[in-house]
């Protein structure tokens, strides 16, 4: 049902637009900024957090007046259900909507990847706030930008941290076979091997599966110092619980997919204690320049989410580009964004390199302490 509607909707929308164009309405015209992420399903909260950041940026821009004479901004949020096939449908819908000048998204690397080809073809800017897979920027698409640091930085820094600070030498690696999870785990493994750490094994699990006890029973006699998980918190929480249930005491570590308060809720407090997660960024509350953003966001939506600030920064970068472009034209917006200028965001300075990646790649380490995910320092 939903997918059929996905094809028909742009057609209806287009015909409405044609009429609206003929009408020559007196009020200001609309420029849309897309936000796409999983808004339903088990990762919905992550997506909603990101799109709220985008919404806040757009609302603030509108409060300052027209973006350029005759135009105001709107957010169009769509749900890709962290499903690559759905992501392609959504991307086509954005492309077909002529009011949309750029998209913030997708959330997941596995969705950003197929969708990026569609945006590239349509010459439409795509800024992902959150997809961390390094392959995304190696496709040669000049329409692709990202704010988040990449896994080829995050994985290796995690490996360094595990070796230097956690004194971990014997590692077992698990990933969830997604573009993000496997990519991150592979980068971790590469660096860990280069550092002379012993990799006892590397196995995949299936997203949405519940029972990992067979795999963990196999890991138990290997007696690793550390289990590294490339994946997201729902599976992470189950892995943790089941590992501790089997008396596996190895340190548990993962990437930004684990750095979520829900990990603690699902794994429950004593079991989640001590788990490490690297994160593409530090503690927002510790950054003085982020204070106004946090105040405004929390006044509207309650506590900031893991990715809210990234969505906010990505949206502000796009808004600035639209303003500089000064015309409702995708190509011009793209050109404006390509003239790379440093942007002072709440997550730090954002400067795009020629591939569209953020040159400022800061990785922080977080740990679950007393049921909270606490920032403990940069990963080195």
């Amino acid at each position, binding site marked *: 049902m939903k997918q059929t509607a996905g094809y028909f909707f742009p057609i209806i929308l287009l015909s409405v637009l044609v009429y609206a164009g003929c009408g020559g309405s007196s009020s200001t015209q609309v420029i849309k900024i897309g936000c796409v992420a999983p808004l*339903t*399903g*088990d*990762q*919905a*909260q992550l997506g909603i957090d990101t799109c709220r950041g985008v919404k806040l940026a757009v609302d603030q821009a509108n409060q300052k007046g027209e973006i350029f004479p005759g135009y105001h901004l709107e957010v169009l949020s769509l749900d890709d259900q962290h499903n690559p096939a759905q992501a392609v449908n959504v991307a086509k819908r954005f492309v077909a909507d002529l009011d949309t000048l750029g998209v913030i998204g997708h959330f997941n690397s596995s969705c950003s990847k197929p969708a990026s080809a569609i945006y590239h073809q349509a010459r439409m800017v795509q800024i992902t706030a959150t997809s961390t897979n390094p392959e995304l920027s190696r496709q040669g698409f000049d329409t692709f930008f990202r704010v988040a640091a990449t896994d080829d930085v995050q994985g290796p820094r995690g490996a360094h941290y595990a070796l230097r600070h956690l004194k971990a030498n014997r590692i077992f690696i698990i990933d969830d*076979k997604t573009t993000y999870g496997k990519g991150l785990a592979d980068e971790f493994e590469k660096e860990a091997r280069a550092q002379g750490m012993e990799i006892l094994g590397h*196995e*995949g*699990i*299936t997203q*949405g*599966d*519940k*029972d*990992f*006890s*067979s*795999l963990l*029973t*196999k890991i*138990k*006699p290997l007696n690793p110092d550390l289990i590294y998980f490339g994946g997201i918190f*729902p599976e992470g*929480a*189950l892995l943790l*619980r089941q590992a501790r*249930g*089997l*008396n596996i005491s190895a340190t548990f570590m993962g990437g930004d997919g684990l750095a979520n308060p*829900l990990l603690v*809720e*699902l794994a*429950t407090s004593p079991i989640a204690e001590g788990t490490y997660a690297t994160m593409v960024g530090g503690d927002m509350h510790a950054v003085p320049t982020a204070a106004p953003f946090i105040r405004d966001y929390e006044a509207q939506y309650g506590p900031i989410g893991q990715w809210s600030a990234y969505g906010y920064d990505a949206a502000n970068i796009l808004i600035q580009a639209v303003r500089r472009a000064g015309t409702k034209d995708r190509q011009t917006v793209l050109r404006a964004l390509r003239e790379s200028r440093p942007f002072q965001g709440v997550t730090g300075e954002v400067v795009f390199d020629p591939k569209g990646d953020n040159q400022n790649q800061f990785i922080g380490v977080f740990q679950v302490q007393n049921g909270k995910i606490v920032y403990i320092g940069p990963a080195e």
Partner: protein
Amino acid sequence: MLSALDIFLQQLVNGLTIGMIYALIALGYTLVYGIVQLINFAHGEIFMVGAYLGLLACLTLKGLFLGSGGAVLLLILVFFFAMSGTALLALLIERFAYRPLRNAPRLAPLITAIGVSFLLQNAVMLFFGPSDKSFPGLIPVTKVQLGVVSVTNLQILIAVVSVLLMVILHFYVKNTKTGKAMRALADDRQAASLVGIHVNRVVAMAFLLGSALAGAGGVMFGMYYNTINFHDGYLAGLKAFTAAVLGGIGNIPGAMVGGVLMGVLESLGAGYISSEWKNVFAFFILIVILLFRPSGILGERVVKKV
């Protein structure tokens, strides 16, 4: 240090636990199929609803039973609430979605079942929200050391409750009047109605029993994994359906054997070959067995009409 045998036994325990839950769900598929030849694809969702009803019961009742003596009573109440809830839900579904199509071509109720499955999934998503829910620990989990294999009291509980329910079902179908009527219907529906068996009532009873078992399975699934999601019914249902086919669909002991076998094979496959291929392994076994025994391990119980 763990020996190879210890690891094997531990894997066996892992597999048996989830196998028991598969078996409970598989019974629902098999009961209904045996009588009305309908593959009730909404059955996995009924299992999932059972887990959510259990969660609901926990959250509302937990405050009342804080003492240690209350834990058993709470457990019984949670099971009762989930099982009667899913039984009632199945009666409604049977009455309004399947009964009107009783004499329609077989494809019609099958597609209706898929529709009901979507309906239940989305209803739960809207009501409880899309993210994983944490299932409260109803009993404090303690480890029992059987030799070197560590078994939790929860795993023992799952095994005991499952076996108990299966034994009750077995005797119910074998010895009671309704049970006999069920078997008569499975043999020949027309002849059964000619000798005065209330077809609608007996069919409803099959749905009710199967769904109550799935409800109990749902609660134990929630207790065992501690997180539940509205998607959970899909894969568990698919595997239980496979288990029912594996044992011989329509055959009650077959469903039990199939479920346990499914859990154990899956666990051994994930443990010894690769966890990446866990689901593939389960379905691969199904294909191999069906190639050599098309009617399942214990054989279909449906009488072929000549």
